[in-house]
């Protein structure tokens, strides 16, 4: 199991990294610059895929958490933990690229506008996910509690998505995912989708690795004699 997981993880990570390298080439030499913002706009190809990968990760955490609550399956909890780490990592990428872009596009790193605030809170929620697991006295209760947090926290995603329309917002609205279909130059769309593929592959690779490690960590240790005897009763 664990060798297979290692091979699968390695393959996925390699594919992801390769695709991301291709994206970088596309970003640097291939895709046309956006008219208004110029070169700066190219951070778009990192920012948006990072955001979507975060969403994917959060979705997996919520799903796995729901399964864990329902079936009390350790595997589901391990999957949730693995995905939650991904959510934190890709969320961090999004939260770093966003302000960098904002510094140039808006003249400020940060403003308390709805999408940014909600995104930050989303990230904190999944930080809290880990804190709560560790801090509740009974570890099993901690897991279930964290699962509840994960599910409630994931409700944030649709809100983040519609927040741009709901509130007066600085942040640009959807250019790809909207009812009328994408309003984006075809080359830009291609670059974006390539980048998205790379991020997703990378995430799935890391996820597979982390999942295998979690499973290993939870395997009951070859116990001392007393422990083993007790377990048999």
């Amino acid at each position, binding site marked *: 199991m664990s060798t297979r997981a290692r091979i699968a993880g390695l393959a996925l990570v390699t594919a992801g990294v390769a695709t991301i390298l291709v994206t970088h080439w596309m970003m640097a030499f291939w895709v046309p610059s956006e008219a208004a913002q110029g070169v700066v706009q190219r951070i778009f190809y990192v920012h948006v895929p990072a955001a979507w990968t975060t969403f994917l990760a959060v979705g997996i955490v919520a799903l796995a958490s729901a399964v864990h609550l329902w079936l009390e399956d350790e595997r589901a909890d391990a999957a949730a933990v693995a995905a939650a780490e991904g959510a934190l990592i890709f969320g961090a990428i999004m939260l770093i690229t966003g302000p960098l872009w904002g510094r140039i596009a808006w003249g400020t790193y940060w403003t308390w506008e709805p999408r940014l605030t909600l995104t930050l809170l989303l990230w904190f929620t999944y930080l809290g996910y880990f804190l709560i697991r560790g801090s509740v*006295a*009974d570890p*099993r209760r901690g897991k279930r509690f964290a699962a509840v947090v994960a599910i409630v926290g994931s409700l944030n995603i649709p809100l983040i998505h519609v927040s741009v329309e709901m509130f007066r917002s600085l942040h640009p609205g959807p250019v790809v995912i909207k009812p009328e279909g994408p309003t984006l130059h075809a080359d830009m769309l291609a670059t974006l989708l390539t980048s998205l593929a790379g991020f997703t592959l990378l995430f799935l690779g890391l996820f597979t690795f982390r999942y295998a490690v979690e499973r290993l960590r939870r395997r009951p240790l070859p116990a001392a004699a007393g422990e083993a005897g*007790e377990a048999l*009763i």
Partner: protein
Amino acid sequence: MTLVGRGLVCSYGPTRALDGVDIVAGGGEIVAVVGPNGAGKTTLLRALSGERRPDRGDVLLDGSPVSGADPGWRGRVGLVSHRTGLYRKLTVAENLTFFAALHRISDARHAVARSLETVGVATLAKTRVEALSRGQAQRVALARSLLHDPGILFLDEPFTGLDPAAAAALESTLRARRAAGGVIILVTHELRRCLGLADRVVVLQRGHKVYDGETGSADAADLLRFFTATSSDAS
């Protein structure tokens, strides 16, 4: 009917309150659980009643596992705990009627009146719980635990605050329920009373079971010595 706890382990954070306890209680049997303060008696009742799922081990009724998540199981259990578990701002009758309705008792009014009769506080039905004395409140708590005629009773120091008459009445109620085939697990510190009342006694110490035997057997006196000798510290 037999209630079995098998290899029960319960921790509060780093504290292991129960560390692999096995306990068996048959129908028509009163099992007394004794032990020094902090031994894990209350925790044992919490695990058996399903209020707290044990970290390890399981609870079986007639061989099939039970859990607090199962309403069927909860309907068969009666519990008296350290606190009265009543709503202070409601009257005695309001409290009991509320719990009777949640227990789906069809003739709630009658059941409430009868159980208040049993514990001798019938005249207090319209009094708010906050205006009761400690012993009166304890009687109401007992009435609540008997309301739905539960087959399995968990009693955590039920004699607390009861005057001798009420204590005697409780003893005879328990004897009657034993005769009717109920399972009764009784935690108490009054060794004399428990030796007179219970069929079997289990001694806990620091989360371990250190004694388990018939009260009638010759060991009972030893047990008393044993228990009082080793329980000098609560921590």
